[in-house]
């Protein structure tokens, strides 16, 4: 029937913050058109400054990586592989074993809002908190810019903003548009996404939707479609998860991200051992060599 399936999911108002519902982003590169509207909307809404006009030569990507002044970042991956059953030029006609395949994939990257967040655990000031909707938020007025979250994020998301940009010195990353969410609005990036590649909603709904989408894609010849949601590692899953084609490395995503707190035990053990050894050595030195 005509008009079927044209309803949008990102338009409605919500009260997730008030109801303490865990929310998330599901980003699907198979419908992303690389328009970068999410990047621009994010910058506009959050007053994120530009961070340089540098042409990279890396496909159409001139923003490089997520950082203090790039909270949404659209990746442009060019690969010599086939995408689903796509026919590209005279190549890869008909079957999947085309001689000279090519594909161009866009994926909008964002802070993952980890279940177990490295930055949040590392923050010594309590500037980074978890919100009612399960997102990880940097309170800009509390952060003193110690830079420890920067090395503690397994995804390389958060960064300290350099001078002379406005608000320099603090650590910045995606806020999940917490301010918008409090008012019942959808985050700016999801709101502007024309093809609903970025879907915002309840985490459980999104996970179900994502699983279904992967299945659907498998049926349609996208053999290498998979979900990127590292739930089996110490990160324990991410609230902004992605569908990816192929391996995560190609998208600059760590294959097995770990929250650095798991290293604490062995490190502290070594530290205490060293300290005690040092004391014993010192005491021995004075005891025997005085």
């Amino acid at each position: 029937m005509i008009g079927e399936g044209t309803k949008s999911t990102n338009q409605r108002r919500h009260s997730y913050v008030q109801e303490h519902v865990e929310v998330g982003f599901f980003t699907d590169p198979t419908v992303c058109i690389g328009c970068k509207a999410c990047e621009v909307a994010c910058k506009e809404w959050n007053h994120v400054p530009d961070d340089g006009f540098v042409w990279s030569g890396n496909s159409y990507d001139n923003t490089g990586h997520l950082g203090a002044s790039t909270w949404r970042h659209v990746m442009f991956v060019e690969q010599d592989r086939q995408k689903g059953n796509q026919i590209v030029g005279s190549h890869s006609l008909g079957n999947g074993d085309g001689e000279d395949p090519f594909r161009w994939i866009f994926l909008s990257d964002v802070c993952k809002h980890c279940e177990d967040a490295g930055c949040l655990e590392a923050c010594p000031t309590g500037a980074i908190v978890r919100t009612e909707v399960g997102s990880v938020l940097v309170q800009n007025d509390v952060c003193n810019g110690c830079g420890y979250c920067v090395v503690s994020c397994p995804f390389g998301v958060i960064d300290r903003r350099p001078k002379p940009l406005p608000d320099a010195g603090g650590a910045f990353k995606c806020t999940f548009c917490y301010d918008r969410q409090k008012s019942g609005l959808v985050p700016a990036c999801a709101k502007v996404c024309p093809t609903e590649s970025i879907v915002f909603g309840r985490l459980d709904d999104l996970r179900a939707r994502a699983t279904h989408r992967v299945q659907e894609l498998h049926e349609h010849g996208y053999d290498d479609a998979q979900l990127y949601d590292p739930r089996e590692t110490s990160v324990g899953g991410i609230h902004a998860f992605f569908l990816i084609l192929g391996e995560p490395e190609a998208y600059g995503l760590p294959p097995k991200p770990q929250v650095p707190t798991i290293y604490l035990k062995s490190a502290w053990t070594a530290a205490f051992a060293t300290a005690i050894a040092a004391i014993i050595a010192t005491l021995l030195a004075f005891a025997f060599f005085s």
Partner: protein
Amino acid sequence: MPDESRLDQLREEAWQKGAVTGRGVDIAGGPIPRKLATASPSGGGPGYYGQPVVKPPVWTWEIPVYFFVGGFGGMSAVIALAAAIFHHVDLVHTAMWVAAIAAILSPLLLILDLGRPHLFINMLRVFKPQSAMSMGAWILTGFGACVVPGLIALELHVHQVFGGTVDQLLRVAAGVLMFGSAFFGMLLATYTGVLIGATAIPAWFLHRTLLPIHFGTAGLGSAAALLELLGHRIAALNFIGFYAAGIETVLLIWLSLDKHGAADRAIHEHRSGWLIRIGEIFNGPLALILRFFGLVPFAAISFLIGALVSRFGWIAVGKVSGSDPESVFAAERY
């Protein structure tokens, strides 16, 4: 609005100079080509166009210097305590001064490195065992809170400013505070290894057990070396010097053998690798040999140089390793 003002700034510059020269803007036909981004088509470079997967540390020179200062300061307090127990009064005095100066320098260095130094006090908003940085802040605070009054109490006691009960109290206080100083001091010298070991930087977290040993031992050796240079040429410190240099030599061997391929190549290749190796040689075998031949001051200087250089080396390793996507992939697949 901040972004608007920046825009105005750029416009102003464009108006005055006819071009915005900062950060990557070229005018058509401009004479000097900017440094080219080197990327090949179809996803050149490992991962995503060679972009880093994790973020390299933003820390500058203050942090390695702090590691160094905190290291010898903390261990100096340990030596002070041991010296007090074994009645090396002069040494106690000097060691406490060294520790106190370190206790004042350290926070200054840390604050200098903050993005927003005026908010340094926020460090003490929370007590967070799972954050090595938070623990460090409290350790440093505890250290400072023990060392400085401890030194004051010690000085007052030594110079007999007060008499009678007060002096007795001062003596007890100095003792207790020195005990506290030593406790916090040994943590101060070692926690920094935990600080960088428990991060997402591959070359760091792969060596998370080595780092505290290295930092703590280097701190101990540095404290002894410094005290020796300050005139305390006693056998006990010489022994500590042997001990520290010995451990460092073992660590150098460990580090050289314990390779993780691409995951920690920042330690074995690049300039960062050289820095570490030079540092380790200076405070390991070289210091050991010099001390063996009785060239104590040279051994002390060698150890101090090594300790400082290796701290810089480890930060450099973090920067290289954090910018290298392949090291992250390798470390996680490892």
